[in-house]
């Protein structure tokens, strides 16, 4: 058992000679004890030290390369792998800013210099002054006219409805099934009116003078 232990300690002899600091305190103490007891081992320690010295004096293999050239070669090889963004690489370094500058200038020119801005906007629909039919002051039909303008539910005078009904002199079969009180073609101009025109038309029609007619 003691022999095995000694053998293990002897196996540390070269490491002890070459780098005592790399042995633990316990390992150092064991080798020291062994060296103190065994003169043959002390002789081997001396031989080992001499041999390691000889090995370290061996010239390195080959002839030294040009270290700066090697460093440059490594630098060049690594630069190709450099994870820098594509736009910062040499061939794009001038193209990308140029294109970006040109695009910015073009956008600014479009925004700041609009030669005929009115051409792009649709003309407001002309306000057409529709002739208000001259009606008998006694006739209450004109009072229901706003019904067609804003679509709100208004109370329609019964007389007016009767009047419409009476005015149609076409028979039932000649009328299309979708026929309404007024032919739709007569009302298409209303769809073309904008809000302002409708307001003005309503004001016009609501005015007592037009509503009631000349008194």
């Amino acid at each position, binding site marked *: 058992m003691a022999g095995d232990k000694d053998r293990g300690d002897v196996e540390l002899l070269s*490491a002890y000679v070459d780098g005592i600091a790399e042995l633990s305190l316990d390992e150092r103490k064991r080798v020291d004890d062994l060296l103190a007891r065994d003169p043959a081992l002390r002789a081997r320690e001396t031989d080992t030290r001499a041999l390691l010295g000889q090995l370290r004096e061996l010239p390195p293999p080959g002839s030294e390369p040009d270290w700066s050239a090697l460093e440059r070669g490594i630098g060049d090889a*690594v630069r190709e792998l450099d994870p820098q963004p594509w736009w910062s690489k040499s061939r794009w370094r001038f193209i990308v800013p140029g294109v970006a500058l040109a695009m910015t200038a073009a956008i600014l020119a479009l925004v700041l210099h609009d030669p005929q801005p009115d051409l792009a906007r649709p003309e407001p629909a002309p306000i057409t002054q529709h002739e208000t039919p001259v009606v008998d002051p006694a006739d209450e039909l004109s009072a229901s006219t706003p019904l067609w303008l804003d679509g709100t539910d208004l109370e329609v005078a019964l007389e007016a409805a009767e009047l419409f009904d009476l005015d149609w002199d076409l028979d039932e079969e000649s009328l299309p099934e979708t026929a309404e009180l007024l032919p739709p073609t007569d009302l298409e101009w209303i769809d073309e009116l904008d809000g302002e025109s409708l307001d003005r038309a309503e004001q016009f029609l609501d005015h007592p003078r037009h509503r009631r007619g000349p008194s």
Partner: protein
Amino acid sequence: MDVLAARLPLLDAAPAVSTDPDAELAERFRNGERAAFDQIVRRHQKGVWYLVRRYVKRDADASDVSQQAFVRAFKGLATFRGTATVRSWIYRIAINCALSWLRDHRREEPTEIAEDALVEANAAPAKIMGGQEGAQLRAAIGQLPPKQKLVLELRVFDDLSFKEVAELAECTENTAKVNFHYAVKRLRELLAGDDDGGR
């Protein structure tokens, strides 16, 4: 007892590899500082080149393989976790690249004799031990079992700590120390002409 006394000042010495001097550079690289990698290259290119040069037998090939190793290191450094030192990690990559290169170029490799001739031709005269002695040493190293050879070379020629040697040789630190001991012992036997088979 006097042996112990002679070693006492060293007992307080800090462990050889308490911190990784390259850890800060690796961290700076991970934070996007490209120049940190250049510094790592500058610090380790010589070591990597000589390490690779022991595997491949031409200087130009050693340069190519070294470059390849650093490119791989560049790709992997962002995910390097720091369980080993940066140096031993790069050396591991370099060894893998060298072994891979050897597999791909097996037929083109010069013989060991050619390598020795090259070494002698290029050696600096001031540092040389006797040419024959050096050749004998190299030949003896070449006869070591692969693991012992690896451990001995990493320790003696690359000046790695036993911890780093263990990381590269994929063994425990204690196993690295033991392998180192048997490599030295076997070398001594080979140089003494006692070629009876090592441990």
